[in-house]
């Protein structure tokens, strides 16, 4: 019985994914090999040209480059901010009740539907928006700063806004596991805060960092909503290219593009796992 326990425990998860992900995924793979025309959107066939188109097109490389750029920048920012927020919550907040309370404080904005929040960026960052009016009022600038909205800056800002918490939570959980006596030992041995941080705490929460990174990478690479709204439709991303194809009902190339994206990101995460094996320390 004991030997089967892990299988039974993993069963619900596996069933959900079998039905709602693996099956659709197979459908997507099949479609990626179909032919298509402008008015005959799915022609069952087995052709490679969808994939050929993806790999031979200049657009692919340009969009992947742009998306990767975002990924790295967003990862770096969310990591730094996320780590210190988690550190603050674990080491500088007295009781668990306060930890939960502060967490909730951070989560509440996300209970205002994302559609509403997306619209509200205009009155916040727009030409006549709150931030610009404040900047002008304080005399810091004389004209509205247009790059605050509908720009790559806005997209990065939006990603940081949405995804920092995804870094905070795993790092928070990892930090909780750190034996405080280790930290005390380091301080007793004369280490400064920075030294303790870098040599003791950071290495011990590597799994948490890795998990947070997986979240951020996966979501930035596949996103098209945020980049579309905050980029004003003028900033590219892989997800957006796929969504444009879907708008035209061009299913086979969209499917092929999605599979390529999947492959690329899985490779990235596989590489990440080589550096930090999050399953080793379970």
């Amino acid at each position, binding site marked *: 019985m004991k030997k089967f326990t892990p299988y039974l425990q993993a069963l619900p998860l596996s069933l959900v994914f079998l039905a*709602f992900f*693996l099956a659709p995924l197979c*459908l997507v793979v099949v479609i990626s090999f179909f032919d298509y025309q402008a008015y005959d959107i799915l022609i069952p066939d087995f052709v490679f040209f969808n994939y050929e188109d993806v790999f031979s097109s200049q657009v692919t490389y340009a969009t992947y480059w742009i998306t990767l750029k975002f990924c790295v920048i967003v990862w770096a920012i969310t990591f730094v901010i996320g780590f210190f927020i988690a550190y603050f919550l674990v080491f500088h907040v007295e009781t668990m009740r306060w930890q939960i309370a502060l967490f909730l404080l951070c989560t509440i904005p996300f209970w205002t539907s994302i559609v*509403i929040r997306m619209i509200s960026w205009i009155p916040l960052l727009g030409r006549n928006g709150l931030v610009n009016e404040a900047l002008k009022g304080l005399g810091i600038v004389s004209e509205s700063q247009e790059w605050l909205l509908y720009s790559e800056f806005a997209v990065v800002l939006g990603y940081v806004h949405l995804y920092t918490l995804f870094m905070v939570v795993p790092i928070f*959980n990892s930090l909780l596991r750190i034996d405080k006596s280790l930290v005390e030992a380091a301080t007793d041995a004369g280490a400064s805060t920075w030294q303790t941080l870098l040599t003791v705490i950071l290495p011990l929460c590597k799994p948490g960092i890795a998990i947070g990174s997986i979240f951020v990478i996966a979501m930035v690479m*596949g996103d098209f*909503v945020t980049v579309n709204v905050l980029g004003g439709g003028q900033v590219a991303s892989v997800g957006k290219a796929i969504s444009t194809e879907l708008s035209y009902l061009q299913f086979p190339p969209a499917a092929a593009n999605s599979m390529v994206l999947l492959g690329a990101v899985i490779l990235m995460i596989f590489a990440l796992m080589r550096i930090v094996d999050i399953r080793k320390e379970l």
Partner: protein
Amino acid sequence: MASASSAPGSRGWRYGLRILFGTFVVFLWGPLFLVILLSFQGPTGGLTFPMNGVSFHWFLQLLEPQPIGDIWGSFERSIILGLMVMVLTVVISFLAGLAFRARFKGSTLVFYLVIASMIMPSVVVSLGIGAGFELLGIPRIWFTSALGAHLTWTLPFGLLIMFAVFNRFNPAYEEAARDLGATGFQAIRHVVLPIVAPSLIGVALFGFTLSYDEIARTSQSVGPLNTLPLELQAMQTNVTTPVIYALGSVTTFLSLAVIGVALTASAIMHGRQKRKGSDAGSGLV
């Protein structure tokens, strides 16, 4: 387990971190603040500045049946769906997290399948589910097919957080329990569960929030009745009024109220326990 008293660092650190946290919260609340501000627009107001007067008009409008769009119906569906997803996510992730502690055959495959689900553009997954169900002749309903779609989104997060939770989880507790005669099940229920309970609350929050905000994965798998974000998005194809801002404000106030009540209640109960001198319930490490 780490706690505040072991915090290394001087007062500089303490204030620096507090300022950082404060700024972060302000940053997160920025758009929401706008939403609340603009929900007090006058009757001729729109969704952006210029602000046309100040009134409670839109809050009153919220109570009326909407000319276009079924806000309350979809809101109800979103809440119910969110709660269902929340519970299922916690249970399934917890179980799967336990499973992954042992190396079972196929665990790598399942792991990468779960990650793939996070990466795959949601819109594609949604089409896959929608079209797949259509081919099989199964109707799409918000509490079945959309539930499944939401789970493919929340479970990867739940599972990976469980990895962080069980990271270096000391097996000594369970061994001790077993030495004292507990069965495997009892060890999990009475030893493991209480220890990870706070993190499970975190997973629950995550699960609910992810589901409540989910658009792309739901769009093709939800069937004829929309969830709130889908309905709001569909309303964008026609005139939309600050009534949706009013909705945002109301949900915020409600959440704050609920949380405030819950925290106060728990503080009172904790205080009562302390006074009674029992340490039951303080076993949450």
